[in-house]
């Protein structure tokens, strides 16, 4: 019994871990109140997918995909494609994070907070003020 679990973990455990990581990320985005924390969770989630792809490229007894003398069969190298793909994914995630951070800066600038409930409250206040201003304006026009 123990053996089967350990072999299972050895073979598929990494998938389980990435899945946990992914779920953590998603859960974090949904539950965190702080926008910065949400951004961090987003990064965790993206990392999980990168792991997933890299695991796919893995094979036992393979070496890094750089031509080495004496090793000529494809079986001797791990699959380079997922790595290539993940380079792109990392770039994308970098871009997303950059956009996210700059948006956060602006949010902080405009509202003075990056806590979600504070922010919503402030938006509500703002729109109430706006409505009141409109009403006064209309009244002024009427009179």
């Amino acid at each position, binding site marked *: 019994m123990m053996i089967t679990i350990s072999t299972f973990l050895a073979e598929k455990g990494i998938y389980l871990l990435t899945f946990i990581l992914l779920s953590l990320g998603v859960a974090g985005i949904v539950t965190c109140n702080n926008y910065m924390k949400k951004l961090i969770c987003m990064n965790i989630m993206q990392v999980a*997918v990168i792991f*997933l792809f890299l695991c796919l490229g893995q094979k036992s007894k393979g070496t890094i995909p750089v031509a080495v003398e004496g090793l000529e069969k494809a079986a001797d190298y791990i699959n380079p494609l997922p790595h290539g793909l993940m380079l792109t994914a990392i770039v994308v995630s970098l871009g*997303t994070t950059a956009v996210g951070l700059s948006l956060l800066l*602006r949010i902080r600038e405009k*509202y003075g907070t990056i806590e979600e409930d504070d922010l919503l409250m402030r*938006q509500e206040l703002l729109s109430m003020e706006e409505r009141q201003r409109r009403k006064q304006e209309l009244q002024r026009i009427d009179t």
Partner: protein
Amino acid sequence: MIENNLPVLIIIVPLCAALLCLLLTGINRHLGRAVVVLAVLASLVMSVMQLGLVIKNGPIHYAIGNYKVPFGIEFVIDSLNAVIIVMISTIGFISAVYADHFVTDRRPLLHGAYNTIIALLITGLLGMASTGDVFNLYVFLEITSLSAYCLIALGGSRGIVSAYRYMLVGTIAATFYLVAAALLYGATGTLNMDDMAKILSSGDYDTVMLLSMCFLIPAFGIKMALFPFHGWQPSAYTHAEAGTRPLITGVMGKLPAYAMFRFFYCIFGTDFRYVRYLMLALGVFSVCSMLYGSLMAMWQNDIRKMLAYSSVAQIGYISLGFAIGTPIALAGSFLHMIGHAFMKGGLFFCTGAIRYKFGTTDLNDFGRIYKKMPLTCGLLTVAALSMIGIPPTAGFFSKWYLASGAADQHYWIYIAVLVISSLLNAVYFFKLIEKVFINEDAGLKDKWSRGPELPLTMLIPIVVCFVAILGIGLFNAKIVDVLLLTLGEVGL
């Protein structure tokens, strides 16, 4: 030379323009914008040429950089995406023309960046439509999303918050998409869509496909704002930057729907063992979407928010076609995709124009605005009627195809939902028409001096949308013929 490389040129040209734009704006304020507009126009011309070629010679397979096909990236243009590409570049062009009036900050760097982002958004959309590679689709999806985040954030302080929230949710969607892609790649060892479809059709991978389906539905559902994944959409569409809102609302939601079609019908195919569950799930989501979106839209006072919720409902129409699955119903979906792009785009061109002139988006201020803006209100009316589905506008015919597909498959409930949803649409769109034509004049003050109704560059998009809505309606049979060239093979 050009003819052989059309698929890639259509994407490269706006991309180059995007990169050049920032630089050229530094030299002259108008140069950058001119380059972007011209590049998108070039794309438009080339996409029309491409459509002609596809109709004449059948699908185009274009291997980028001449890498051998299952290994390199391939662009596959069949009659479906050729039509979609024409739609994107048309709306892209008219929005690029239109958007410039809404730039308030005319510092060269900002102005240039604004046009750059527009060009990038169009590039991403065109790329999503063209590509035949699973991972490449992800890249273009992210290009689209990143530029959309920026454009939404440009719409003022509320826009920034909406953009941030959209970014978080959108990234979840993209990540889910990647997970699904990883699963499929792990099973098949290929990223090329055609190749993958061939391998998957053996039926050995049904479990993996089921698993990836569970990731793909939320992924595309979020991106196209299908109920219950639409949470980000109303505020993002409402607060997006006014000049590019037609592009974002009209086109951006359609491409994920198109990608969803590619995955479920072209890659998974209708022989997929769990296809019935897939279609049932899509059907339930679409029905909820159509009813919920319309019900929410009825209560809105801000026209932008009303139209945003109506988009939730309209996306439901598109995925309803996927849930029915006959070629005719799929053709209805695609017709709706194209038609709705012009309707929703047109409605937002109008609201943008009204806002430009009078600075308001509150429905209660719209009393008898038709006297001041007859052309704009003409389009507003036609687009609204098309949304309800009054013949001979585009909206009626897509509904016809959807309903007749549903009738062929005996999905009576879908027909009932189509009827109810159009009646709900009628409630709020006639509310709009009532406001525009009948209610008391609210005494709005024109922000600009007297003169023609709108500047010429704002009138062009309005007229184009007007013509397109009626044209798509009247010549729908021709468009459907073209669509069926491809759909005839993939449908049920």
